[in-house]
């Protein structure tokens, strides 16, 4: 999408707004606040389309991460901590199609369901509640090292499930 191309933005909105809104709503639990984040994420894409590096893979995944970060900032009532240009991630394949995303999402949900509850919980506290490792350790009463290892092995398990 080149800057100034409103019809391209509308197409991208139609393709990815469901993912963006779902992530924002999952983090914030409030439809009005989620709609504000949805608006902000697509306006940022409109203002700075070059921030996304297409060579690194999925626009959907990038938007999901941008949305999660903005929603966490909103949840914690703080100024945005990360500029969108600094969010660099690597995901393949592209997942541009609804069917591809749906299949991938199903795989990930299955993997999450199969995980031990404590591990899934640590991942979700970090990702959807924006908690730091020490906050998670305080809440669960487990050692910091255990939390760190759980989160890493959880992410690696998701990677393997996605690639399978």
């Amino acid at each position: 999408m080149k800057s100034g191309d409103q019809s391209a933005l509308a197409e991208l909105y139609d393709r990815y707004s469901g993912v963006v809104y779902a992530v924002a709503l999952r983090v914030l639990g409030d439809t009005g606040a989620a709609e504000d984040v949805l608006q902000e994420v697509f306006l940022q894409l409109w203002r700075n389309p070059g921030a996304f590096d297409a060579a690194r893979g999925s626009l959907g995944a990038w938007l999901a991460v941008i949305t999660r970060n903005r929603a966490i900032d909103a949840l914690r009532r703080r100024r945005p901590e990360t500029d969108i240009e600094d969010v660099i991630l690597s995901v393949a394949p592209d997942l541009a199609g609804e069917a591809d995303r749906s299949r991938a999402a199903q795989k990930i949900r299955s993997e999450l369901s199969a995980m031990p509850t404590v591990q899934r919980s640590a991942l979700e506290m970090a990702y959807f509640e924006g908690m730091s490792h020490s906050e998670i350790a305080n809440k669960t009463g487990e050692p910091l090292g255990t939390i760190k290892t759980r989160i890493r092995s959880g992410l690696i398990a998701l990677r393997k499930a996605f690639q399978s």
Partner: protein
Amino acid sequence: MSEHEQFADDLALHALNALEGEDRVKLEQHLASCSACRLELEQLRGDGSLLALSTLGPKPPLRARQRLLDAVAKEAAASASRAQSARTPVQPRRSWWGLLGWAATAAVIVFAASLWKENSGLKRDVSTWRAVVGQQTLELERVQKVARTITDPEGQRFTLVAMKTPAQPQGKAFYLRSRSSLVFVANNMPPLPPQKAYELWLIPMQGAPMPAGTFKPDARGSATVVNPPLPGGMEAKAFAITVENEAGAATPTMPIVMMGTGE
């Protein structure tokens, strides 16, 4: 345990923005010089995105689409209006306009530094070179006046930017590798927390970033760094700025707040 293994768990937490404190500082220092770990961090961020992509939820309300398109149309109209204004005979440019002039004066300052050195040698052979030294002294007085204009705290500074555009932090580094001379000029720098200073870094073509002086902006956000101690002949790939303790640091503390490559 290798250094990479030592940071493996912390990388995963950092990918989710869940790492904090000293662990985060150490990891960011390591990331500054380890491309393998930067790559793994990108991969782990991608793994984290799978959590987001797996989220189920209702579709956004229909009004949200129209709200976005209305906002975009409004911005596009405002942008077109600004472009129209820019076509008037007087074309305001961003503050680099001002820096163009500064570029020339900064180059003169670097030249002046070399003149100082050369003057010392010339004075050993006064009878032959007296006339040359006299001429160079006049030249030096001229460039000293220019230098004072830039660096004197009582000097007035004006930064020109496009109308209705918030002033952005800007820095310009003039570096003469053969003489290890550096002049750095910054504008609109945000204020610092107590006991903190900005630190300028020379990023060489190979190897770790080199400290190139600390500075604190004045009340107007302006600052200059002139000829900090630098190793000789270092080829610069870029310059960067971080926020450090007042005494400065030997290695940069992430995040990098400003960075620029050679023009």
